């Protein structure tokens, strides 16, 4: 589904991703682990198309298309979703308006009609209930005054509404208590299908107890330095990155 080949990325003229290779097929869940500052979030933002993340060489191919040719919103139309490590607060924009504009933006990109307000409300009620998010939070401004856990659940509601083919979830598990972790994991597992792929970025083994990855990679200093199966995550938990990477 997605193929990242010899990717080099500069942020503020500093090279952060230094020759990264990764291929993920439909139906797979991959996990990337690695020390702070390794470049995990930079990789996620580059996949999502953040401006000023300069790809100096290499390529990202998504479903046969050159992803780097597309703007951020177009990538969402193609089926990419980024769950933010730090979801952004946007005062003055209601969560509902935000999600409806997002969904209709994607539908327009795909040449579909806008979803009516009534139809959208029906959809959002179901998705919010699945993630135990009450309607009050949907009426509030985007992420404003949300706790860390509420922000992450909000990310999962957005993912459920947009129903992406490929989701990159950047530390979606951090700052969650055990109940919230379960809810969020259920949300991720619901998105796990034969025709979708998921890339989990995480620090902790505990998310991987709930969402079992097919492959685990270690990212250090801008490169994937080791890959393996789920057992690699346990090994990292035991020994730390220093010995492995």
């Amino acid at each position, binding site marked *: 589904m997605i193929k990242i080949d010899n990717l080099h990325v500069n942020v503020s003229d500093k090279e952060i991703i230094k020759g990264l290779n990764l291929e993920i097929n439909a139906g797979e869940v991959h996990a990337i682990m690695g020390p702070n500052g390794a470049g995990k979030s930079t990789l996620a*933002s580059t996949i*999502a*198309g*953040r*401006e000023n993340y300069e790809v100096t060489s290499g390529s990202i191919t998504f479903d046969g298309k050159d992803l780097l040719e597309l*703007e*951020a*919103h177009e990538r*969402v*139309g193609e089926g990419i979703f*980024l769950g*933010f490590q730090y*979801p*952004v607060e*946007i*005062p*003055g*924009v209601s969560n509902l*308006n*935000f*999600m409806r*504009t*997002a*969904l209709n*933006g*994607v539908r327009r*990109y795909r040449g579909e009609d806008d979803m009516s307000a009534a139809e959208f409300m029906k959809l959002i009620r179901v998705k919010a209930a699945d993630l135990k998010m009450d309607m009050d939070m949907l009426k509030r401004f*985007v992420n404003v005054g949300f706790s860390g856990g509420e922000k992450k659940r909000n990310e999962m509601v*957005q993912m459920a509404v*947009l129903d992406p083919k490929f989701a990159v979830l950047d530390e979606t598990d951090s700052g969650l208590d055990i109940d919230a972790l379960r809810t969020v994991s259920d949300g991720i597992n619901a998105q796990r299908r034969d025709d979708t792929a998921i890339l989990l970025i995480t620090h902790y083994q505990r998310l991987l107890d709930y969402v079992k990855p097919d492959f685990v990679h270690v990212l250090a200093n801008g490169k994937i330095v080791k890959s393996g199966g789920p057992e690699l995550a346990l090994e990292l938990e035991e020994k730390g990155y220093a010995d492995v990477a």
Partner: protein
Amino acid sequence: MTATVLETYQSQLESVIGAIPCTDALRRSAMDKALTAGLPTPKDEDWRYSDLKPFRTGAFALSKAAQTSDMPIQYFADKPAARLVFINGQFSEERSDLGTLSDSVRLKTLTNHCQVDTARADDLLEGVDALDYLNTALMRDGIVISVPAGVHVTAPVELINLVTNSAKAATHTRHLIELGENASLTLIEQYVGDATDYWSNPVMQVRMGEGARFDHIRMQSEGSHAVHTGKLYVDLDARATYRGTSIMTGAALSRLEITARILGTGAHADINGAALAAPGQSHDTITRVDHRIPGATSEQIYRTIADKRAKSSFQGKITVAVDAQETAADQSFKALLLDRTGEANAKPELEIFADDVKCSHGATVGELDTSALFYLTSRGIDPDTAQQMLVEAFTGDALIAVEDDDLRNALMDNVSRWMQERSKGGTQ
């Protein structure tokens, strides 16, 4: 140079003498004062951010009276109490619709002002600076709305000031709004015009009796080559509530000066505004809130946006007299630069002579939040729509005094359209 420009204005005086008979002496006195005061200069503190070139490079002729114009007008109220249209400063019977307004209020044009027993030239402010004086000396017409005590005009009154075919010509309109005790009125005032380089120099005087309530929308949507120098004077008696929202999008050079005098305990003034300056435009807002008595409140919320080479300035002065204890006065100004070449200036000024007061002010200048933009686009929202959403959110703060949801949404639609025009215009 300045003297010759003003002398040209002096020569225009004779052509309006007799138009509003009881004001002839006032006109002459005002013109003398204009000559003495002189036109503003960049040294005048209030004019430090405004471009004076249009005033100094020659006089504007008097605009020609026009009975009608086919220029389209955007109305905001579905069922207004009345639609009052002035064209080049003269009341247009053809385009106006008085509705049933005159059943409940005293309504007349300024040209008929002298015929009424209760109305005298004294009702008209002579002015405080050269532009006011020129307005007083050269005004052609205006509306006089007097809402009797206890009368609530429930539907909004729309007041349209339209200028057409007035290249290098000036329109000086004078409107008077008077609210009796516990009276209420909603006014939606608009300034619009064609693409000529006209000058619009209106003055509005508002007098509010005890417990009166005035909801006031003022939209400056002049033509793109116009100069607009608007003045608004509001006097509030005890327990009166003024809720004013100004929206400034038009003109090449625009100034709005608002002076609110709080003269009674328990009065409250909201003086809010949004100014959206497209490439090359210059917008100035000057507010003076004068707390003279104890126990009154005021709040100012200004949000301004400056695009490429545009300038947006705000000077807000709060004065609290020595006796005006227990005053609460707040002021918040935020500017958003849509481009590095945009400019925003803020000059808050607090002159507080009483000791038991709660006053605050804050001013920030920023750019669109790139993290927020990325967040929105990362959800499939295209960049133009994302910017529009952030601009609407930013501007929305300034519209909170508009309680009517439909009206507030209609005003917000204008902000959205402004952003849509901007994205259509591309990189001009």
